């Protein structure tokens, strides 16, 4: 039985771990951390943030934002960001829909979500008519808040599934 390769690999074992994962992995893991006290991630806080955001968005719409040289660049830049976040939102919605079978379980959540979505459409029209950094930032913030609401909802669904399973196991 030959052992040359086996011995070589075992002697040099640590040198076989030569690759490093990119920063993307930790960024994604961090987003999903079940963080402790959790006040900052609580749904209530995000609801408040959503309400504040909607008020700020309404204020922005009343402001006439002058045209600038970089309007088209801002618009193009936003379209890339929008595509990226919309993909994330679509995946999360699919997951939530697949896992929520109890009627009415999503009532509070969907109301907030639809309000944000409606405000987004209004802002998007404004972006098309008068692209500006302020409107772009408001749109991105809207997308981020929606993603966080979706994450919260997914976390709640996971917890409730776990509780149900534990209940079944206890029986």
């Amino acid at each position: 039985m030959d052992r040359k390769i086996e011995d070589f690999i075992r002697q040099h074992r640590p040198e076989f771990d030569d690759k490093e994962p990119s920063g993307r992995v930790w960024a994604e893991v961090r987003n999903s951390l079940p963080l402790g006290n959790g006040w900052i991630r609580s749904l209530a806080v995000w609801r408040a943030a959503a309400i504040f955001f909607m008020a700020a968005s309404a204020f922005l719409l009343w402001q006439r934002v002058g045209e600038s040289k970089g309007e088209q660049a801002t618009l193009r830049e936003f379209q890339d960001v929008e595509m990226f976040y919309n993909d994330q939102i679509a995946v999360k919605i699919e997951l939530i829909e697949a896992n929520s079978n109890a009627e009415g379980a999503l009532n509070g959540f969907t109301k907030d979500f639809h309000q944000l979505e409606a405000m987004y459409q209004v802002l998007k029209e404004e972006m098309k008519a008068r692209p500006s950094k302020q409107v772009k930032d408001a749109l991105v913030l809207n997308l981020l808040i929606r993603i966080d609401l979706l994450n919260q909802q997914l976390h709640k669904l996971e917890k409730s599934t776990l509780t149900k399973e534990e209940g079944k196991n206890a029986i």
Partner: protein
Amino acid sequence: MDTETLNIHRDLIERCKQGDEQAYLRLYKLYAKAMYNTAFRISGSGEEAEDVLQEAFISAFRNLADYRGDASFGSWLKRIVINKAINALKKRKHELMPEDELFDVADEIEERDMPELTIERVRAAVMQLPDGYRSVLSLYLLEGYDHQEIAEIMRITESTSKSQLSRAKNKLKQLLTLKTNHHGSQN
């Protein structure tokens, strides 16, 4: 393994359970590189290995409450990584075993015919192995699992694991010999 070794990161894990983000980051940094390389050797793809790593850490961190210290955190996490990597590979390849007919190897190569080994050459040759061979060889030689454990992980029999390892080693020798001859003829 004694209890002290098993619970080497007990304090860190306790802090994670209380939601300390810095503790999560430290635990991630301690294990990410080794786990990424483990996933990469099984999947054969950097992108897929990153997805596996991400899913494994998310799953481990979310289930940290279930971790009771009866295995070292590293081996628990490694088992999650390997299971996810094997599943991803199976999904992509549809069937991982057997592949004997597809990648049959030449007759046993004599030890004396083997060229001088270097890390780079062996690493590259391992990555050139067919998926099934590479997985069994990595699990056995690099991750330290025995055939019974490999059989359980890959849902194959122990004798399949043994025969795949033997074929994988022979294929590896063939690749290393061919590579050296090829380089030699170019010079």
